């Protein structure tokens, strides 16, 4: 069981997911549910045995962003019995789009999406989005940093589900390249050798990025608490000042997050020997 939250736009895209696997009797944590491919990221929810096999298949076959959807179709056709096709739901982020693959319902992928959530936690995500929408709250997602704040915030909402944990893995796509980042408690199973070799260093970048995201959520909560005096008509300048102070903090955080992501991408490219 899981939650995956994906977003994409003109500057690229990302998927945030948790690390929990569940059986009727136990919880498992630290599972890799994202695969970083050549210009794309694949996320899987459902039967872990199928997802892990898919990731190894993609690692061996090395499809590109253009061919990955066909390769996934081939994998399901050649390696998974038909009765199990519906046991997984997949998301692919490539270039500027999110692609949903739901073999239990559709024979073809749904391409061209800007946002999607899958897994047992997806209901929580869509309910939170619906509630925000009803209140008129927008979710800016123009930059990669804004996308990350939005997707991670929604994944945190899904952590209320018993089948979702708060150890996150994040897969990015930018400039036709993919990047993976995760909590140090997540074991890397299927990934290029160069990334596996650098993984212990990669996870050290996660802590500060997660701290920025947590602080940003806390600032939002504080500002919304101040502005909720609107509801009984007592909103005043003090409340606005509180919200403005929080807003300034969020601006600093977003700038810091963008810079930190740029640093991480540069380090990652260097480690993998990419231009």
């Amino acid at each position, binding site marked *: 069981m899981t939650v995956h939250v994906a977003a994409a736009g003109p500057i690229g895209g990302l998927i945030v997911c948790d690390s929990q696997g569940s059986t009727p009797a136990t919880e498992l944590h630290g599972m890799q549910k994202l695969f970083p491919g050549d210009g794309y990221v694949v996320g899987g929810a459902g039967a872990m045995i199928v997802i892990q096999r898919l990731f190894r298949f993609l690692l061996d076959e090395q499809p590109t962003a253009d061919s990955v959807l066909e390769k996934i179709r081939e994998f399901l056709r050649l390696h998974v019995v038909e009765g199990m096709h519906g046991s997984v739901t997949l998301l692919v982020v490539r270039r500027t789009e999110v692609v949903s693959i739901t073999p239990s319902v559709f024979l073809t992928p749904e391409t061209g999406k800007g946002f999607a959530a899958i897994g047992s936690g997806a209901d929580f995500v869509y309910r939170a989005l619906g509630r925000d929408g009803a209140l008129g709250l927008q979710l800016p997602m123009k930059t990669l940093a804004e996308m990350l704040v939005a997707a991670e915030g929604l994944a945190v909402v899904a952590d209320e589900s018993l089948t979702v944990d708060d150890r996150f893995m994040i897969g990015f796509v930018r400039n036709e390249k993919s990047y993976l980042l995760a909590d140090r408690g997540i074991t890397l199973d299927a990934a290029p050798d160069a990334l596996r070799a650098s993984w212990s260093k990669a996870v050290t970048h996660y802590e500060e990025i997660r701290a920025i995201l947590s602080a940003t959520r*806390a600032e939002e909560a504080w500002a919304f608490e101040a502005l909720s005096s609107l509801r009984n008509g007592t909103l005043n300048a*003090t409340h606005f000042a509180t919200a403005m102070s929080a807003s300034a903090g969020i601006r600093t955080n977003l700038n810091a997050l963008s810079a930190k992501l740029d640093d991480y991408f540069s380090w990652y490219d260097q480690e993998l020997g990419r231009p």
Partner: protein
Amino acid sequence: MELVGAGKPSTEGRRLARHLMEQRGDREWNEVVVDLTGCSAVLLVSAFFNGALQEVHERAPNELEKFRQVRWQAKFAFQQQNIEMWVREFNAPAQAQEVLV
């Protein structure tokens, strides 16, 4: 010593400021160093520092300008940058009063 608890940021900021006022003794404010590197990121937000500054303003308004010289140590650079901004821009009493809803 653990001085900061797990309450609301504004409450914890006020409590820390009270403690600092009571315990600083003969030291000048610019000699006071507060190590926040072990604090959760969700605590070290605007409300925490505005709460601390508001507490000083209410208890000892003449001390406020000197209190801005306290040296705060945070774990990450973005926190340090925010702290400097909030401390510099705090403008009592319009900011950081307890929010009643």
